[in-house]
């Protein structure tokens, strides 16, 4: 049974976590014609925007209510109203996704009523634009929670409720925030290859996929359409990827009765087999040759790759569902999880992580706990720990700002699992060290692991 260890320190030293509103904005970016709006001071928006841009290397639509000192004293409702109206006038978005920040949440503002008032007051003006609210104070949760809240908010606010006629080929898919653009593209392709019609919410593959749009657009281009969100209730089946998406799926189920199946991970042969079986069952179609071929290629990669993984010690710091996805991938290849660090203790998936314990903490903790590991797995800010410890780093999660193409890495289904195997095996191969005569004294060697367990950050 995995133990969930509370934070060691009050401080966060090199934090692992990004805050909730960013996760919510990220989800809104997966909707067509959307404009995420941070309700707070303009600094948050500016900073978050820069971080998004550095990660995706794309133009990112993100707006601010630009709360100033006066608004901080008197309340932000006017700023929120002005922002919504300005946005509507200038960019004609189909969706404005309001994400609250610590500033308005600390003030305890009732943003839901504020928005209801704006909608009431300007009903005509705002026709054709949905405004939804995700309450995402920076002082709770992390990206996963923000992402899930935004999706739930969209379903609650937009999806037509009540029992509907089911379209037997239509599948609603709610992917977790740990899926890359390439993952979402590949997922759609897989589902379509069974003759099914997937509606993916959010769909970042359309909006953050590194294309060059054919005109200047100020909102997102591509992504799930608002109309598709409205009609989610006619899906025959909802498929959820990642435990954090269970809540939005429940919301959809509650509103419309669409049944859902949760896949906590789509990485690894068995998980994908289960997913493919479900698609086959829902569609009544046989597994296409192309998919079988990819499965065979993965089998081969498992054989070629397992040899490099056996006995390796892996230190991972990631959001809960990604931690689970990667930890099960690694242990499935014969590795051991030497350290598992995550952002919050709010997710049930942590109980399933194949490790002795999961530490709630930061990259400072990772750096201490990872000493002696063979691989660090975390976002780009792990690069310094990697250098100090002399352990190679595999970049996953958010942010990745110092590599290109991170959104085009596949991590799910047969092919994504295969690619992960190759990537990791190649990191190991690039970091192999031949023994020296000196290293061979069997007794000395066996005393070393403990000696290694010290780092600049361990002095407590």
């Amino acid at each position, binding site marked *: 049974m995995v133990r969930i260890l509370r934070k060691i320190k*009050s*401080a*966060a*030293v*090199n*934090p692992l*976590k*990004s*805050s909730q509103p960013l996760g919510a904005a990220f989800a809104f970016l997966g909707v067509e014609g959307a404009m995420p*709006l941070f309700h*707070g*001071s*303009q*600094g*948050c*928006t*500016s*900073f*978050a*925007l*820069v*971080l998004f*841009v550095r990660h995706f290397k*794309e*133009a990112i639509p*993100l*707006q601010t*209510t*630009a*709360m*100033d*000192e006066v*608004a*901080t004293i008197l309340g932000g409702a006017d700023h929120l109203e*002005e922002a*919504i109206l*300005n*946005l509507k*006038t*200038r960019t004609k978005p189909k969706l404005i996704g309001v994400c609250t*920040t610590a*500033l308005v949440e*600390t003030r305890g503002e009732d943003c839901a009523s504020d928005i209801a008032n704006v909608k009431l007051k300007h009903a005509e003006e705002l026709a054709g634009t949905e405004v939804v609210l995700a309450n995402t*104070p*920076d*002082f*709770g949760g*992390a990206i996963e929670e923000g992402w899930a809240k935004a999706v739930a908010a969209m379903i609650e606010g937009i999806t037509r409720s009540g029992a509907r006629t089911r379209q037997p080929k239509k599948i609603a898919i709610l992917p977790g925030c740990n899926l890359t653009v390439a993952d979402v593209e590949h997922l759609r392709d897989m589902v379509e290859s069974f003759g099914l019609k997937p509606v993916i919410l959010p769909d970042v593959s359309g909006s953050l996929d590194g294309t*060059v*749009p*054919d005109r*200047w657009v*100020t909102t997102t281009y591509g992504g799930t359409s608002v109309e598709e969100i409205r009609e989610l209730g006619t899906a025959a089946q909802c498929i959820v990827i990642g435990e954090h998406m269970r809540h939005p799926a429940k919301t959809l189920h509650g509103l419309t009765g669409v049944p859902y199946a949760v896949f906590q991970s789509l990485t690894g042969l068995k998980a994908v087999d289960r997913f493919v079986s479900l698609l086959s069952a829902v569609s009544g179609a046989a597994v296409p040759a192309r998919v079988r071929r990819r499965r065979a290629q993965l089998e081969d990669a498992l054989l070629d790759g397992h040899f490099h993984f056996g006995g390796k010690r892996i230190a991972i710091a990631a959001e809960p569902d990604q931690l689970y996805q990667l930890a099960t991938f690694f242990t499935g290849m014969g590795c051991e999880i030497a350290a598992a660090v995550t952002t919050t203790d709010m997710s049930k998936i942590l109980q399933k992580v194949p490790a002795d314990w999961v530490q709630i903490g930061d990259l400072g903790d990772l750096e201490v706990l990872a000493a002696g590991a063979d691989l660090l797995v975390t976002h780009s*800010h792990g690069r*310094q720990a990697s250098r*100090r410890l002399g352990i190679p780093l595999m970049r996953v999660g958010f942010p990745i700002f110092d590599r290109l193409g991170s959104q085009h890495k596949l991590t799910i289904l047969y092919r994504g699992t295969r690619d992960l195997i190759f990537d990791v095996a190649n990191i190991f191969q690039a970091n192999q060290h031949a023994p020296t005569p000196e290293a061979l004294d069997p007794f000395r060697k066996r005393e070393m692991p403990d000696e290694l367990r010290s780092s*600049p*950050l361990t*002095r*407590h």
Partner: protein
Amino acid sequence: MGLDYENDGALHAKLIEDVLSQYPDKAAKRRKKHLSVATSKDEAGGEDKGLSECDVKSNIKSIPGVMTIRGCAYAGSKGVVWGPVKDMVHISHGPVGCGQYSWSQRRNYYVGTTGIDTFVTMQFTSDFQEKDIVFGGDKKLEKIIDEIEDLFPLSGGISVQSECPIGLIGDDIEAVSRKKAKEHEKTIVPVRCEGFRGVSQSLGHHIANDAIRDWVFDKDDVAFESGPYDVNVVGDYNIGGDAWASRILLEEIGLRVVGNWSGDATLAEIERAPKAKLNLIHCYRSMNYICRHMEEKYGIAWMEYNFFGPSQIEASLRNIAKHFGPEIEEKTEKVIAKYRPLVDAVIAKYQPRLEGRTVMLYVGGLRPRHVITAYEDLAMVIVGTGYEFAHNDDYQRTGHYVKNGTLIYDDVTGYELEKFIEGIRPDLVGSGIKEKYPVQKMGIPFRQMHSWDYSGPYHGYDGFAIFARDMDLAINNPVWGLYRAPWKKMKDAPLRAVAAE
């Protein structure tokens, strides 16, 4: 060097008109004050005469729902002024967002052992949770300060950088700082730079300057033997090594740089600053407050300078030397002569590849004006420039740099900037990361002029060589030849049937 040219003022005026016509009346009226065309010809060497119409309205609050690229007071204090002080631990005090967002956004280079005696590229936050908001965070701050003392005993001090909630929940970070400073016998600086204060990062600079005045100066006896040629370099954040390139020059002309604020700086350099003879101020916007204070209180003169491009380097060196007299002036001429062959070689190599190429700038701090001459030294043409968070005195200073007809824009929106770029189609845009990808997608070469796009330094003679190379690499990369503006592309593309070879 230098260059005589005039920009197409009429075109630029028309562009402003077009842009404004798209706004609702009220917003148009407000935005109109931020946009302008320079109309009076620049007179080389003119000292005080700014451009009459260059004083666009600035430092005015942003409009909700009209995203600009401004930051907040926290960005100005933590991100700009305090963050680079390398031997201090800077706590982003409040929720995790601000610190994580801003982590390693600026490339303030430094020398030191990170995690031992140096902490610039690390990130520290009190990671507020709901209970801290409800019950207050002072106790937590105390614990964090103790933890930092324990984990990083070689840190030179701590600063507490307030995030928005701190100002709302009534925490007394000053009291905590005083108490813990005493307990640990260390400098602890509380900074009230909550993000809702002011209209941009600019107020954060001011607050950060004031914190130096109130919480660092005159606190301890500073054991420091001062000399006649001691100067502080103020407002150089050592982006990509800029401060190092500048220091080489100042030392070559015989000065001693006793402090570099705040790129690669230690707390000790700040403490001893009042003992210097002259403050050389690079980024006027972010650090003029403390220079004015030092002038008032300690009688230290201050002087602006510009080390971008040989014309300005020479002028600045001579100006600085004049302050110290003939001996330094003589050395200065030798230094200038020493580097001239290098400058000639750089210009000989790159001018043919860059001559007449047009540039639009949109940056923060002093760069919208200071880098202009560096481009002109390469015979390039500045067609437009603007500041993110300037004040009126910045725009007055700009007048000396820009040519007639140059388009000037303050706190520009993405929409406006795009329209201007589309209208002018310059050969290069120099701005920030937020602008980089939209501009490139328009098929226009781009360089980040805040972070030097992972290159640098751009200061000093060495920096000029790198600057010239970078601009050449950006403008003359073959990919631009493959690229047509996407909105035009779809008509004739894709791909006429061309016979294969």
